[in-house]
């Protein structure tokens, strides 16, 4: 049976001094295989051309379309309306800077995160463009790939109570990123180097283990396991530093 869906959508344009935060309601007939991506585009085409929201890949790859759907951060392009009740409330992701309506700026935060984590392979090897690429054990490559799948949508950070209270928290995406480079044999950084980046209250010891990140990540990254592993490893790295002969 075809439903009529009621969308309550957050509206606010911070650029416009006359704009005030409010909710607009739109009614839309549900079609087969409808996703929020389709619904939002239809609303914009048929009802309100001014509605702001972000999309790019519409296939859960680019991470642009993250928003709060009935209270939960998630990807709009990945969310089917048939899995939702008739009343759908859409809000922009909290924590990030609002661009307008449902659109937020995740890029600035993720860029900053990458710089804090120094998110690149640290090596002193000279790059030889003619040489064959170094080989890597397949199982390890897959393990790295599993963490590399993060699409930087920001859902984990927006869902994190710690980040909401303390904006300097590195977030699950940042901690996961460090875990990814910690796995990579080409990266020469040591455990003590990792400790300098995340062994603090802005990093892993700030995480309170609420696991909202784990529960909302639309790519189902193993965030709980990475956070647990990091706390354990960094905890011991801190203790090891008490031993004079291990001190750096």
């Amino acid at each position, binding site marked *: 049976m075809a439903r009529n869906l009621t969308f309550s959508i957050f509206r606010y344009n911070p650029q416009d001094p006359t704009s005030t935060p409010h909710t607009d309601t739109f009614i839309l007939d549900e079609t087969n295989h409808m996703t929020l991506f389709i619904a939002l585009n239809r609303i914009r085409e048929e009802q309100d051309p001014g509605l702001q929201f972000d999309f790019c890949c519409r296939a859960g790859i680019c991470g642009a379309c993250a928003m709060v759907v009935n209270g939960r951060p998630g990807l709009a392009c990945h969310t089917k309306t048939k899995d939702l009740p008739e009343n759908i409330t859409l809000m922009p992701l909290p924590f990030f800077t609002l661009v307008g309506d449902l659109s937020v700026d995740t890029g600035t935060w993720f860029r900053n995160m990458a710089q804090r984590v120094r998110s690149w392979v640290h090596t002193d090897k000279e790059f030889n463009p003619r040489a064959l690429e170094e080989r890597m054990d397949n199982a390890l490559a897959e393990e790295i790939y599993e963490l590399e799948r993060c699409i930087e949508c920001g859902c984990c950070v927006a869902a994190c*109570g710690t980040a909401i209270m303390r904006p300097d928290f590195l977030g699950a995406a940042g901690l996961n990123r460090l875990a990814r480079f910690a796995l990579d044999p080409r990266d020469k950084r040591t455990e003590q180097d990792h400790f300098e980046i995340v062994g603090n209250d802005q990093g892993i*010891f700030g995480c*309170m283990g609420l*696991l909202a990140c784990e529960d909302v990540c639309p790519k189902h990254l193993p965030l709980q396991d990475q956070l647990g592993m990091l706390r354990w490893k960094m905890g011991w790295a801190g203790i090891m530093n008490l031993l004079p002969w291990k001190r750096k």
Partner: protein
Amino acid sequence: MSKSLSIDTAAYIPSPSRSSAYLDWLQMLTGAALILFMWAHMILVASVIIGPGVMNAIAHFFEATYMAQVGGPLIGLVFLLHFILAARKIPFRAEQQSRIWKHSRMLAHKDTWLWLVQVITAMLILIMGAIHMWVVLTDLPITAEKSAARIQGGFWMGFYLFLLPLVELHVGVGLYRIAVKWGFVGRDKRPKMQRFEYVITAVFICIGLVALLRFYFLAL
């Protein structure tokens, strides 16, 4: 040369601090120590269900070995230390409180709520636990009869009926969170651990209630 130029030049080189790591260990270890204590405590209190004689024997053992006289205040210190460490995570600023509250309501996410349960029970335990420890430790030795007299007075029955679930909730959630935060329990075992948390909380509340009733109806 001149004394007035005593500038700490090292202040300009940020030295990586390890203190967050140590404090996090201590927070977890004091929490774990308090959990172990609460279980030992439950054995003592619940022994009254079998009979006041059993409880008196156990209490006497703790006193004869000076575990009550020394261990009691020591637990008090651990209790205080745990509070100071965990307080680093408690939102005390009104702005943070309002944020986490709105956030929890928006997210409707169980583990986020459980953390709030932990913070709120913690503040109440801090006050009520301190009162309870003071009353018991300033009136040694511990005997079933003295406890029963207190509880039958009425006020303390209400006090304990309130404190018991607070502590058991805090302990249950704390145990679960230690397990997931430190990686002892991974993604695959998390639902199981959560069930274990509920069961252990419920079981301890039940044992505690039965013990309280036993005290209440103990013939003096």
